[in-house]
C-alpha cells in the first residue's frame, strides 16, 4: 500500500513538472510568434530612454506615453518591466540610470497612459499629469 502511494506521488510530481515546463515553453513560443515580446521590449526601452532623456534636461518637463497596447508596467530602482500579467514569462525589461534623489518604485496595472516627469530635479512616474 505504501509502495503504491509512493509511486502515485512521484507520478504526480512528474506530471506537475511536465505541465509547468510545457506551459513555459508554450507561453514563450506564443509570445515570440505573436511578436508581443517585441512590443514589450520596445516599450521598456522607450520608457528607459525617456527617463534618461529627462535626466539630462536642465529644467522641469514631462513625457506622456499612451500607446501601451494594454500592457502593465513596473518601474523599480534602475529598471522597467513591461508585461501582460505578473505570471508573464516573456517580460520586456530594460535598465535606465536615475539620479540619486529619485526614488522609483511604482507598478501600473494596464494604465491608460504613463507620465514620466522631472520636477525639481526628481524623476516621478504616474498615470496622471502631476
Amino acid at each position: 500500500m505504501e509502495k503504491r502511494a509512493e509511486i502515485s506521488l512521484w507520478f504526480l510530481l512528474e506530471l506537475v513538472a511536465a505541465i509547468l515546463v510545457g506551459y513555459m515553453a508554450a507561453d514563450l513560443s506564443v509570445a515570440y510568434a505573436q511578436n508581443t515580446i517585441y512590443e514589450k521590449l520596445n516599450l521598456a526601452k522607450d520608457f528607459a530612454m525617456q527617463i534618461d532623456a529627462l535626466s539630462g534636461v536642465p529644467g522641469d518637463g514631462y513625457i506622456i506615453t499612451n500607446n501601451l497596447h494594454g500592457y502593465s508596467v513596473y518601474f523599480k530602482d534602475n529598471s522597467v518591466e513591461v508585461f501582460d500579467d505578473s505570471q508573464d514569462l516573456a517580460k520586456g525589461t530594460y535598465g535606465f540610470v536615475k539620479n540619486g534623489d529619485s526614488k522609483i518604485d511604482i507598478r501600473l496595472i494596464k494604465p491608460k497612459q504613463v507620465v514620466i516627469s522631472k520636477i525639481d530635479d526628481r524623476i516621478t512616474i504616474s498615470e496622471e499629469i502631476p
Partner: protein
Amino acid sequence: MAKRLFNKKADMSARKMVFYMVFSFVAVVVFFLIFWMFSSNKSQIAEIPSGFENFFLMQRFTNSPICFTLKEESGRVYPWVIDAKKFDLSNLNRCYDTYNTNTKAFRLTLTYKNVKTTVSTRNWEGILNKGVTRKVIVYQDGALEKGELFIEVQDAK
C-alpha cells in the same frame, strides 16, 4: 526472495535519483537560458543605436544641475557651463547612480587653464571605450573660462 526485491527497489531508486539530478540541472539551465534570451537587456530583438543611447545618457553631464551644471540661487540653470566646484566624484555618483544596475560606464575629464580633473562612475573598469570631446565653459570663483570635457563611454557588461 526478500533480498531480490530489496535490490530491485534500490536499483530503481538509484536510477530515479540520477534522472532527477540530471533533469533538475538541465531544467535550471534551460530556465536561465530562456530568461537570459527574453528578459535580459542583452537581447538583440529591439536594438537602439548605441550612439543614440549614449547621447541621451551624456546630456545630464552638461545640462543637469544635479551633475555639474551651474545653477544660480534664483534657480536659473546654465547648460554647458560647468561649475568647477561641483565637478567631483560624489556629484557624479549622485547624478549617475549606477548602484545595483548593469549600465554604461563613463569617465569624464575636465580640462581648463592648467587644471585637469578626472572622475569616473562606480562601474568604470575596463579598457574598451569610446570618447567624445565637448567644448564647455567652466565657472570658477566668479570667472568664466573656456574648457573641454572629454567623455569616455564603456558599454554595459
